[in-house]
């Protein structure tokens, strides 16, 4: 196993492109080292991106935040400005593994590991985050929801890697939240999860929303219909109507549940996940609403 520590993103991309056999990127290593341990044949090449300065920093950019691909989630939690702007994304990153794991794990790695249950991904999708991909020749920006194509699979081509994740500037009166269900209270993988980001007008009416569901399909699901159900409301209207009349079509919670395509496994049954993801989406929307200043 060849171990390389390039100092620029381009050099990293060139190493990956030139690799004869399988090559892996090492950021926090919290997935890669577990895979190595579980008997995966060691890749011919491991490219450690932590020597690339731009990948190790959180930077303010055009009112938003650019998070380098090698920044551990603990550092995101310690960043005052980031936590204030995007509390949902930061709390999702703060749910990954233990304190020890958070000292290493990155959201770019969480994204590229492409687990359907990745905690930070629904929050980033809801946030409208954009991944900057660097290749041997050029860079391109794509929405984070376009990265994972299925469990463990990404749309990245040979020689490409994620350089950073950009969280855009938020309009005033915006808020986001992420919730997950796990069978334990800590240190577990989501059975279902939901990220919600929304913006209100001066009267507290929702004017923009994004709703993303995790662990209930082969990849994170962006539910545009659910967002539409929130827009134009003060949320309690939608929620209240549903509770009383149970109108499945207009019910935000039911729309989310209906969008879920979960499997049965040891963490939960299809039925359970379908129900719980709707509940989580509803609660996350209410938290996001409060964070946006809604009452």
């Amino acid at each position, binding site marked *: *196993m060849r171990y390389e520590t390039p100092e620029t993103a381009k050099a990293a991309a060139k190493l990956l492109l030139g690799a004869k056999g399988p090559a892996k990127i090492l950021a926090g290593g919290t997935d890669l080292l577990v895979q190595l*341990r579980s008997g995966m044949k060691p890749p011919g090449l491991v490219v450690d991106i932590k020597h690339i300065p731009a990948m190790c920093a959180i930077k303010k950019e055009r009112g938003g935040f650019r998070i380098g691909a090698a920044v551990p989630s603990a550092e995101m939690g310690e960043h005052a400005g980031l936590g204030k702007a995007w509390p949902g994304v930061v709390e999702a990153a703060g749910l990954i593994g*233990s304190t020890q*794991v958070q*000292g*290493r794990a990155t959201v770019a790695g969480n994204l590229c590991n492409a687990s359907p249950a990745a905690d930070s991904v629904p929050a980033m999708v809801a946030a409208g985050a954009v991944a900057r991909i660097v290749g041997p020749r050029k860079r391109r920006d794509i929405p984070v929801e376009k990265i994972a194509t299925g469990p463990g699979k990404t749309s990245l081509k040979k020689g490409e890697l994620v350089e950073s994740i950009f969280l855009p500037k938020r309009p005033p009166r915006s808020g986001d939240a992420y919730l997950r269900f796990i069978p334990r209270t*800590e*240190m577990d993988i989501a059975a279902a999860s939901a990220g919600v980001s929304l913006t209100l007008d001066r009267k507290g009416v929702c004017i923009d929303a994004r709703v993303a569901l995790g662990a209930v399909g082969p990849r994170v699901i962006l539910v545009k219909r659910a967002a539409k159900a929130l827009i134009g409301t003060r949320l309690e209207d939608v929620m209240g109507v549903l509770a009383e009349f149970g109108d499945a079509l207009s019910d935000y919670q039911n729309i989310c549940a209906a969008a879920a395509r979960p499997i049965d496994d040891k963490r939960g049954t299809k039925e359970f996940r379908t129900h719980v993801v709707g509940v989580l989406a509803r609660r996350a929307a209410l938290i996001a609403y409060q964070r946006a200043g809604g009452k």
Partner: protein
Amino acid sequence: MSSVAVSTTVNGDAVEVLCDTDETLLDVLRDRLDMTGTKEGCGTGDCGACSVMLDGRLVCSCLVLGVEAEGREVETIEGMAEGEKLHPLQQKFLEHAALQCGVCTPGFLVAAKALLEVNDDPSESEVRYWLAGNLCRCTGYDKIVRAVLDTAKDMRSA
């Protein structure tokens, strides 16, 4: 063939070690440097027995490659006591009987020390969440949590 010479710092001492690229920092500490205070539990980042500090951040050494330690500072349980003088946490673990078989203990101590460095007055709930990645199959955790809270109290008044 894929052996690499690594220069690093362990508990303040400069260390040179030859290791394979796919060896973990845990294996390098235990098998190459004979520092067996850091324990291996699961080897997959779930149990925290191998907790060490890497450039001031708490990590599982089983999830770090040995070669990644190049130029960085590693702190292990061996650096916690000053000679014969135990760290207050070590003393409190003894007083509270916060250990039984002892395999998880170095990891708990390293992790608890990291907590008290960033928060000198943690609540019980904060202690439990911070240490959620350290598993103990003997004590039932209560004595460990009490030992950490008691240490924090003493250290604040010191």
